[in-house]
């Protein structure tokens, strides 16, 4: 009567397969009587089964701990977060594109205004560098040449006549587009 299959029977099994189990129908009828809730006091075995069933039914399910519930609910909120980040990133990219399209480089005003005094200082710096470069070249020639004397070789005289920068104003238009082109 208390045989138990090792594995659950497949529900797809033929309907008649269950009835190969001897006592199946009798046990089914007994269970139906227990479930009906009728008075079974005339059958002590069934009455005891019914009593146990009633006792088991009085065991309430525990409450899900708050921490566990929160952890699960939090998890369900997780998958939406990447979408929010993606939306924010898309908004940033879109705003950059809009700004770039509406404000091309050629129309942008210079962020720093260069005064004539700034430009005079820049010109002086360039001319100073040029003059110092010529002086270094002359000094180097004078000091190094004596050590380079070779019997068959005569050092050619170097004319380091570096001209001043031909068009110093050509730099200026990089910074001040309004300056007229140099001639």
């Amino acid at each position, binding site marked *: 009567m208390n045989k138990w299959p090792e594995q659950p029977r497949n529900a797809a099994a033929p309907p008649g397969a269950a009835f190969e189990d001897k006592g199946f129908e009798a046990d089914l009828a007994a269970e139906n009587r227990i479930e009906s809730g009728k008075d079974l006091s005339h059958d002590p075995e069934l009455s005891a089964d019914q009593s146990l069933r009633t006792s088991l*039914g009085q065991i309430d399910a525990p409450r899900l701990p708050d921490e566990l519930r929160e952890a699960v609910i939090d998890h369900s909120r997780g998958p939406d977060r990447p979408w929010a980040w993606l939306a924010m990133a898309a908004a940033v990219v879109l705003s950059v594109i809009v700004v770039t399209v509406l404000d091309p480089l050629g129309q942008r005003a210079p962020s720093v205004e260069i005064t004539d005094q700034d430009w005079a200082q820049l010109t002086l710096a360039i001319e100073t560098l040029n003059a110092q470069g010529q002086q270094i070249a002359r000094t180097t020639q004078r000091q190094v040449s004596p050590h380079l004397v070779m019997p068959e070789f005569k050092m050619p005289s170097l004319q380091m006549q570096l001209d001043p920068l031909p068009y110093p104003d050509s730099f200026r238009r990089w910074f001040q587009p309004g300056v007229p082109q140099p001639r």
Partner: protein
Amino acid sequence: MRQRFEQLVDANGGRLLQLARLILRSASDAEDIVQDSLIKLWSQLPSLEPGAEPAWLMTCTRNACLDRLRTQRRQSGLLRQVHSVDRELESHVNDRGPATNALHQEQARQLHDAIRALPEPARSLIILRDIQDLDVATVAETLDLTPNQVKVYTFRARRTLRRQLEECSHEQVA
């Protein structure tokens, strides 16, 4: 969908925890498994038919519990962590509240042990049908049985359980 999920968590969470606690010895293991099952539910929810969720949850939780039991049995050392687990079980039994008010604490412990000692699917049938009073169709779907098999096997499982409990009480009297 989140609202539906929260409703399912609230409606089924306690039952799942009870199922897991009655199969496993460790209450913390039971909570881990229930948490995993509910998280899996969230990912599966779009593909589940409305109304099929309880059976899906029960199946998922039960399978996870049985897998955990098999693992524990393989690791015999862990299975013998009787003292700590028993203490946890005792505390669990103690704070069950009105659920076991009708039963003596010792009887409740014996009942838990007797349910755990049942083979599958008898154990699951007792929990799902008699303790949780789930309908036959849901249990049949959960355990992959026909409705009549659910009834007959539940009847047999209950009788086995009753005899085990009677033997325990006879031994105590003796």
